[in-house]
């Protein structure tokens, strides 16, 4: 959230005018920062207050999604799996299901057997394979220091 205070007539005036305003504008949930800026509209230096919600770490830069053409398909099929999971738990609990274009195309009790069958049928298409369970997948660890942070 970016907020500019004042009008062109206020340009060059004391900065505490902005400081007095910030509490009423941003409220207690915001961290406020005061900067000097020059904007073409105002033609003179301005004091600008920027409010950032405290729940957002200003040092944190949003991560870019992996550079892979199949990543969007993965996210799409994962969403479809989430929507279908309640029904799948009724019909295929404990099995692995293969999902393509939002539909279950195959299922098996063995993940690798299912994967081989699916990749033989659809070698060039993204297919999501997931176990039908309400359990959250366990966190995986690569504890070798040389891999950490890679």
């Amino acid at each position: 959230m970016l907020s500019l205070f004042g009008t062109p007539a206020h340009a060059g005036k004391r900065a505490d005018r902005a400081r007095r305003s910030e509490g009423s504008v941003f409220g207690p949930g915001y961290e406020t920062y005061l900067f000097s800026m020059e904007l073409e509209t105002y033609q003179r230096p301005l004091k600008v207050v920027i409010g950032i919600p405290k729940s957002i770490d200003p040092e944190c830069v949003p991560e870019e999604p992996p550079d892979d053409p199949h990543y969007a398909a993965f996210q799409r099929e994962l969403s479809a799996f989430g929507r279908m999971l309640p029904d799948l738990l009724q019909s295929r609990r404990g099995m692995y299901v293969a999902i393509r274009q939002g539909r279950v195309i195959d299922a098996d009790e063995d993940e690798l057997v299912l994967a081989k069958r699916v990749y033989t049928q659809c070698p060039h298409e993204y297919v999501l394979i997931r176990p039908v369970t309400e359990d959250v997948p366990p966190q995986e660890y690569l504890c070798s220091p040389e891999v950490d942070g890679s």
Partner: protein
Amino acid sequence: MIRGTLLSKCGSEAYRNPAPVVSGIEIGDLLGNTLPLLWDGLFDTGADRTVVPHKVCRQLKMIPHDWTRPRGFDPESPTREIPRYYVRLRIPGIGETDLLAFGVDRSNVLLGRDFLNCKFFVIDGDTRRWAVHVASRWVPILSRCLRVR
């Protein structure tokens, strides 16, 4: 069965303390497609899952299975999403193993516990030797080795 000595180098990486390294690993997809390249592999009991060089997956035009965020040795360190691929590893003396592996930009293979837990793996640091057996054939030996004396 396969055996070797502890080495100070695996792929392009050097180690201060010698490690169990196996050479001649062939990486392919589940359909049997491979590249004419052989890789070194490090037996890594600290890795939940095997890691393969990502460039092999790209060159074979393999489609990732999914992306996950594995943790490293420091739980506080940031993680990123890493792709996982179904791969087939062919290791001399061991045979073929199909598994789900991480694809990471590295020059060698990490053979994690998903690979090792179905094998009989022995390291003798005193003599700097290691050996891997297919577990089912060596259960009697395994039970003798683990017996408390």
